């Protein structure tokens, strides 16, 4: 079971328009999919007789402000413990309506991971049982990991205060 076989199988099953962006990063297969495919795709991988991607290692949000229409991303890290193969699945949604179906029905562990992605990136996981902030305070009105909220710039010139400047 190689990365190529997995990629070919997924493309054969879901079609080239749904599974694209296939590449290998340091031996790790990456595929990109669309919002409406992610739940069937994860179920398919879970129930596949040989692949058995039944462990959700991690779920990360990401923000690319320059990619118009695909600003926010979700990155699923799957692991097939039986075959010891890892797989990364990405999907991108527009920032105006960052709606992604939840996968808490398949993985109980996705609950807090999706809450974290909502908290920091504002991704709305539709169908999530309890989509509230998890690490930040509840009355925060923005999503701090988005790129439009920069940390203080280390090279800024305007702070010349002798005590608090750099």
């Amino acid at each position, binding site marked *: 079971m190689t990365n190529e076989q997995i990629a070919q199988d997924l493309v054969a099953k879901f079609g080239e328009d749904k599974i694209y962006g296939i590449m290998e*990063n*340091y031996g790790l297969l990456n595929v990109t999919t669309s919002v409406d495919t992610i739940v069937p795709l994860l179920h398919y991988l879970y129930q596949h007789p040989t692949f058995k991607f039944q462990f959700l290692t*991690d779920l990360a949000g990401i923000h690319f402000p320059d990619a118009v229409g695909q600003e926010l991303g979700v990155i699923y890290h799957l692991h097939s*413990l039986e075959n010891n193969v890892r797989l990364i699945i990405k999907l991108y949604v527009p920032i105006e309506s960052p709606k992604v179906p939840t996968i808490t029905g398949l993985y109980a562990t996705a609950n807090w991971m999706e809450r974290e992605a909502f908290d920091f990136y504002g991704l709305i996981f539709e169908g999530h049982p309890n989509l509230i902030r998890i690490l930040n305070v509840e009355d925060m009105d923005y999503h701090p990991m988005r790129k439009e909220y920069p*940390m203080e710039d280390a090279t800024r010139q305007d702070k010349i205060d002798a005590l608090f400047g750099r």
Partner: protein
Amino acid sequence: MSDVALVSNPNVGIDKSEENKKYVNELTTLNLGPTHPATHGIFQNILTMDGETIIDSEQTVGYIHRAFEKIAERRPFYQITTLTDRMNYCSSPINNMGWHMTVEKLLGIDVPKRAQYMRVIMMELARIADHIICNSVLAVDTGAMTGFLYVMQWREHIYEIYEELCGARLTTNMGRFGGMERDFSAEAIRKIKHFLSEFPKGLREFESLVKRNRIFMDRTTGVGAISSERALNYGFTGPNLRATGVDYDVRVMNPYSSYEDFEFEIPVGTTGDTYDRFLVRGEEMWQSLRIIQQAMDNLPEGPYHADAPHYYLPPKQEVYNNMEALIYHFKIVMGEIDAPVGEVYHSVEGGNGELGFYLVSDGGRTPYRLKFRRPCFIYYQAFPEMIKGSTLSDAIITMSSMNVIAGELDT
């Protein structure tokens, strides 16, 4: 504090519905935490209780959230090492080296064998320190203070070895990209050998106090159990997963830093209860000792860091006499060296499980995105399920045996 929590969590509270009529007593809401001596960290548990039995619970986390992932997007790579220290502060060398290996993977640096073995020794010492704390504090929570006091001195010995190698004790900032910052001194080797010869006695003494202690076994057996299916579904890794009977260990599945050279076993439990978690951690300490012994016996000669002048700080005496060294020193310290474009995921077996680093680099001096996979954060969400129907005192030791570290959970 309790008023605030109850107002902001409308779902939790006293439920007077028809279904709850079956409970004997009137239901009470108990606010355990955020600061409570028995939770070893800042966690809030809002428990709905029927007498002494927990009916339902809700967890609030994030009290020590420090925005590490956001800060990391502004820091040069080497400055992120100090952030990783502060995640699982019981075993910070593992975090440091996991991060270093992630960046080395991105940069394509080959670490010499001696540095890899040194890393293995320090990581296994850190694992022992982590498990010492978890197991002895679990004993304290069940009422056995003595074992904790006896075994804590061995953590002190481990911290002295850290001091020999990096000067720090808790937040170690140990190692560099490409290897270690200095070789083992004669004193460090003496201390490690002393630890290897003396610690088994201390550990055996601790185990003789606790392991087959009738009171301890009665308190922990069958408490806070979870099945292997649920544990996998909840993303458990590390000792907590192995206690349920799944032999998943990153050191064996995806060996890093020459772990494939060593012979050791993965202890597994059967029922996934508190006692199994205790036993798995206890046995892992013996296996760690085996690994350290093998690494010390076969410690290769040679350089203790890679030849990577763009990323590895030159020795200080050269900085003052050698122009190239001065340039590299300046560029590294100021974070002027760009990393290549790429995405890399690397995971190590931390004290609590698979500690992963997902790094997206856009070719700049800082990561574009850095996601820490913190095992604590992921498995703590199973806590309500594990304590449902148990008593309050059982919930305390369940939490203690899961080794939930607030720093790692909240980043």
